[in-house]
């Protein structure tokens, strides 16, 4: 089965890889680019652990083929901090104890960042519905929602 050469931008860097057309973007990120921060929890778009943005749109990377990534700009959890400087969401997640096992955390952070870029002042309900596709089995979501709301407030103050 012949592979397809894909050139794309990941976390602001140009990258290229050879993809079997059956491989998902998640497979390619993890297996070809070594970016294992995006996780597979279901492979069917039901858990959000593989969330990334493609040209600014939040998607499940298990529901996009790697060969569709050509010419796009992809952001993953590995690109969220600027060097050693954490994004406010990352800091607030640590501060609020907003994760236990941490497996869903990369996907939730990517999704929450995308929300705050679109809506800097979400209500609790808006945060809950935006993140409804990011399953967390450890926390009961309480501290996640608080961390997102608190990060939003801090970012509004800084803006």
């Amino acid at each position, binding site marked *: 089965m012949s592979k397809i050469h894909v050139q794309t931008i990941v976390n602001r860097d140009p990258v290229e890889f050879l993809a079997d057309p059956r491989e998902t973007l998640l497979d390619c990120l993890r297996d070809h680019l070594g970016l294992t921060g995006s996780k597979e929890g279901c492979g069917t778009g039901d858990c959000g652990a593989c969330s990334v943005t493609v040209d600014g749109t939040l998607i499940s990377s298990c529901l996009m083929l790697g060969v569709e990534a050509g010419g796009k700009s992809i952001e993953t959890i590995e690109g969220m901090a600027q060097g050693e400087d954490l994004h406010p969401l990352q800091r607030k997640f640590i501060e609020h104890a907003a994760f236990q096992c941490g497996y869903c955390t990369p996907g939730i952070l990517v999704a929450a960042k995308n929300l705050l870029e679109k809506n800097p002042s979400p209500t609790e309900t808006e945060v809950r519905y935006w993140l409804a*596709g990011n399953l967390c089995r450890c926390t009961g979501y309480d501290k996640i929602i608080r961390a997102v709301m608190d990060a939003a407030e801090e970012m509004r103050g800084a803006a």
Partner: protein
Amino acid sequence: MKFHSPTSFAEAVVLAQNSEGVLRYLAGGTDVLVQMRAGIVTPDELIDLKKIPGVFDITRTAEGGWTIGVGVSGAQLGAHAELCADWPGVVDGMELVGSTQVQGRATLVGNLCNGSPAADSVPGMVAAGATVSITGPEGDRILAIEDIPAGPGRTNLTKGEMITAINLPPRGENGGDCYLRFIPRTEMDIAVVGCAVNLRLDGDTITEARVSLGAVAPTVLLVQDAADAIIGTTLDDEAVANLMAAASAACNPISDKRGTIEFRTDVAGVLAKRAAKFAYARAKGEVIKGTHL
């Protein structure tokens, strides 16, 4: 698996016509990839429609309706203020499909062609009176939305045929629509029952109505009896009771892991009532936002 990225529908039609084995189209991909993952479908050929110019466009027609490209995602629909103002029920239906992440990819055409009787975007389009433009080896044609699904997982498109756009009619004056669905959780489930109501008022009286039900029969239903129950009324209690009865009577559901015959039949009536009330309020000019009414 062969992967094709045609740059015109003409090219796509030729590819589809010459395809061998199992063929799937890739619009948003949110159904095809899940089916591939589950081993339900292993396509021999996959045709990605997203490199065709114009497939991401939402355009106002000369008559005041809308043409929506086959690559337009739910997120794109939801961000289109004018379209949302015209057809909130249609947009809401699409936005209920899957998560925010799925919204970033999933399309109206994909949701329609997946052929699920529970597809959330389809009742809204049926109630709106939407059509699809089709191209194929034999030329172009236009079909009503409700004529596309042939049964669970099947469509009436022939080999080599594909949808090129969704067409929504002009909203016009004093109209309103609404789609509601029932799921056990608040998000992330397949509709157990879905109902869309689209209506137009003259003063307080309903002059036109279309009522559509999802997940209560092998295909999405357009229920004339339910529409007739409210046309000519002000959606008074008696009309609502008749609407509920007509909606429930139209149901021919199955019992499965998501719901029972009895539940689906009962809740179809309840959703018809609630959707009609919201559609009526929208027709009155009220702005009612949200997909979780």
